[in-house]
């Protein structure tokens, strides 16, 4: 019953199959190809093709609706009318050792006038002569007839003062270091930066787009840790490591903390780990070292080991602008690549003339000015340590000191009260101002700046007033 039928079925199947194969042989080749292609396409569609989300394009009407709906934020957020920046003291006259505020003379411990060159008659005379020869503005960038012979003279004098090969000047102190760093350090280069550097350096570091490695302020062991990490990383990829430049960005005397950088150890590490040192000596130029040549003189290190020293003409020298000194190999590059140099008008000649005369005075006085300043700083430091209730931040030889209140009482409001009180007694001091987006906002403090012409009695008076202010504020 089953098997003959089955057998027949199988046989018929076999015949059918055989005839199928035969028919394959007879069909034209292109037909076969087409069928195979269709079968493969179906298989691919089923197995491999991911369902694509069809994004419907927006119609013009929808686009217009979106545009109509969009509302921007107001251009600027509302500002507190009591913010100290909107209620500054407006001064009159020369802001030198003494300032006149509200008709009363007060001693000035607030402005960066370390060597008391503001209002110096010799400098004033030279500036007037320069105006009578060159006018006020230079009317052009350095590349296009804005280079005046007085700029070249100032650059030579600065290079000579520091015993370096070449110097270069900028027309604004802030832009000096902020233009220098991006001129050398590009994307993918490595910057080892101290956390306590001032804002202009932070902006320069940001503008360079390099990889930044911050190390704790003045903490050599933290820096060594970072260097060792980088070294391990380099060994994994030596070919790439040979194209990455490394720089160490530090300050000679830190403006936000008043302490010196541990330069000798950093120079040792330089030759061990092969990075270049860019040091910013804005505050230490003219104030540290026997003849005012900065931290390298203080530690007795050969200045050729530091690749670039940048500084400002706005603090000790009493002019406006900034400069950098170093070897020709390093400094010359800035003449074509530093943005603040190439795309900006040059320094007004009267300010350059004033800077040259200030350098003349510094070279004549040689050791007298700076030694005196360091001595007075030490004495002031001792006297301040004797006052109860204040924390003095900074080296003893630093003419820039930060004063904080002890314990948890250190707030900006209290410090402002102290400043107000001191003003009524005839002492001008200031709370250090910072913007909120600093990399590491320093604690609130009063920034005390010592002028070399202050006498001992005046320093005593300052300490008395600070003591009284402390008592008044805590009560």
């Amino acid at each position, binding site marked *: 019953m089953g098997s003959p039928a089955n057998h027949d079925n199988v046989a018929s199947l076999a015949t059918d199959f055989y005839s199928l194969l035969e028919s394959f042989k007879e069909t034209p080749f292109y037909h076969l190809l087409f069928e195979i292609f269709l079968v493969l396409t179906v298989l691919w569609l089923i197995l491999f093709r991911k369902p694509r989300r069809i994004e419907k394009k*927006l119609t013009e009407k929808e686009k217009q609706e*979106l*545009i109509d709906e*969009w*509302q*921007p934020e107001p*251009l*600027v957020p*509302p*500002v507190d009318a009591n913010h100290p920046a909107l209620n*500054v003291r*407006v*001064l009159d006259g020369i*802001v030198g050792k003494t*300032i006149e505020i509200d008709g009363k003379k007060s001693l*000035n411990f607030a*402005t*960066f*006038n370390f060597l008391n060159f*503001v209002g110096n008659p010799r400098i004033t005379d030279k*500036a*007037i002569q320069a*105006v*009578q*020869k*060159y*006018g006020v*503005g230079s*009317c*052009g960038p350095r*590349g*296009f*007839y804005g*280079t*005046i*012979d007085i*700029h070249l003279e100032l650059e030579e004098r600065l290079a000579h003062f520091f015993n370096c*090969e070449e110097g270069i000047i900028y*027309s*604004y*102190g*802030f*832009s000096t270091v*902020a233009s220098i760093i991006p001129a050398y350090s590009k994307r993918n280069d490595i910057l080892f930066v101290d956390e306590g550097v001032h804002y202009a350096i932070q*902006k320069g570091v940001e503008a360079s787009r390099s990889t930044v490695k911050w190390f704790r302020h003045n903490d050599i062991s933290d820096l060594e840790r970072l260097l060792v990490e980088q070294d391990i990383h380099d060994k994994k990829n030596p070919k790439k490591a040979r194209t990455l430049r490394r720089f160490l960005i530090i300050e000679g005397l830190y403006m936000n903390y008043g302490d010196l950088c541990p330069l000798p150890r950093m120079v040792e590490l330089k030759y061990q780990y*092969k990075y*270049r040192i860019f040091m910013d000596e804005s505050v230490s130029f003219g104030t540290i070292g026997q003849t005012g040549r900065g931290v390298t003189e203080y530690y007795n290190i050969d200045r050729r080991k530091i690749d670039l020293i940048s500084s400002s003409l706005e603090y000790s020298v*009493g*002019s*406006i602008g900034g400069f950098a000194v170093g070897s020709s*190999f390093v400094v010359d590059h800035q003449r*074509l690549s530093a943005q603040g140099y190439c*795309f900006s*008008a040059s320094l*007004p000649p*009267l*300010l350059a003339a004033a800077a040259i005369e200030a350098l003349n005075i510094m070279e004549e006085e040689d050791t007298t000015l700076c030694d005196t300043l360091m001595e007075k700083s030490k004495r002031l430091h001792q006297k301040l340590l004797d006052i109860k209730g204040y924390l003095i931040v900074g080296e003893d030889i630093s003419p820039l000191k930060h004063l904080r209140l002890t314990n948890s009482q250190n707030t900006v409001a209290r410090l402002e009260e102290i400043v107000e009180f001191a003003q009524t007694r005839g002492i*001008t001091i*200031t709370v250090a101002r910072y*913007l909120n987006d600093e990399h590491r906002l320093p604690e609130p403090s009063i920034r005390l700046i010592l002028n070399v012409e202050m006498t001992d009695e005046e320093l005593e008076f300052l300490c008395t007033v600070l003591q009284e202010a402390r008592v008044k504020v805590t009560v």
Partner: protein
Amino acid sequence: MAKTSAHQKNRSYTNVVYATPVSEHPSLDEVYEVTPFSEAFWTYLNYVILNIFGWFRDLLRNARIENRKGSAENNPPGFVPLYQSYESFYTRNVYQRIADCFNRPIGSVPGATLDLLERVTDDYNWSFRFTGGKVKTINLASYNYLGFANNSGPIVESVINSIKTSGLTAASTTQEFGTLTQHRKLESLLAEYLGTEDAIAFGMGFATNALNIPTLVGKGCLILSDELNHASLVLGARLSGAVIKVYKHNDMNHLERLLRESIVSGQPRTHRMWKKILIIVEGVYSMEGSLCKLPELIELKKKYRAYLYLDEAHSIGAMGLRGRGVVDYWKCDVNDVDILMGTFTKSFAAAGGYIAGKKDLIDHIRVTSHSTAYATSMSPPVVEQIVSVLNLLLDNDEEHEGRRRINQLAWNTRYFRQRLTKMGFIVYGHPHSPVVPALLYSPSKIAAFNREMLKRGVAVVTVGFPATPLVLGRVRFCLSASHTKEMLDEVLKHAEEVGDLLNMRKSKLNPKRPFHETES
């Protein structure tokens, strides 16, 4: 226009007292002639030859056959090289050959005439030596639009006085003890001059842009910036952290397309709405000589609720009936521009920059600007120079000195541009802008033009790559109100000679005509 200048030519200009203002409808006819094919070809060939020579010389230097000029590294080996050699290829092999055309030192006030310090080179521009001599030249290079660069006169007297009474610096930041009464006076005068509610001044023009744009926009904002914006604007935009989109120079259609697309698609990846949109433009572009299309920009800005930042570095004092910049020129409302920025280096012959606008904008900048918190305030003598110039420009004096200068500059601009164009030079830019670029195309011609003009006693600025596109090297004349017609005539005569020597007078739109002076 040709008729008026023919009429004016018959008057004597030995002492120009041009009292009638040059009031015309602001015209929209900026012309940019297409680069002739032959010029493009020869310029590219020029670069190819320079490259071949450069490659060959580098080969010689690397093989130590030729001495490597320039200084060498003083660190021991093992340090990663400070500069990539291919980055400085252009500097070593192209720029160095014509380096004597740049960085020329001067020894006098940069007024209508200039004393250049003569310098010679013994080793093909690698180093220079001063001979001690001075070359007197007519100055068409300095940014002295209103001619206030002087070393004598009442303004200089008041500057000297201010040095004696206020010193050279307050040595303190604006937020601490750096604000003097002069600064406040400057700011209020500036606000009065520009017609805004308030203004704030800074010590450096470059820093004004780079340090203040980050306080206005930040992450989550969009900046639409013109292709040819200045380096300071680009730096400020980058530092702010906002998304930057560049539109083709003065192309309002492209700008509108970008605005529409950006608002519709929102921030990249997250598609959130933008917080703010800021359009950054310049009043007069210093390399092209073109003006921004302010009325159209204001219309676009209002339609899409964006904010407008106008950088009037070259146009303040130089454009407009009353010298108040492009806003005055186009007769727009100054309240429509949200942020007016400018510099004091060009028309005021001082140094520094300013931002002006509504009071809450300026208050915000006073509180958050990097410059007021960390940078030393402006030097008092410089402030005094600006205040004196502003007083003149506000027309407060009986002699109307400010008005005279503005008119003189406008007349000089039209005269010079017309004659230069008629000579057959290819001149770019707006017919009323005091910056006059004439195209030279190839780097050798820009060097030759510069040197030939110097031989004839005219100091000009010639620029090439990278300040301009690769084949569009040019000479840029900066006119000044202190140039007399005789000086301009002399310059044009020399330019005609040198143009013939270099075969540059080949404009198709304005073919050269033999131009004969009818006056002696």
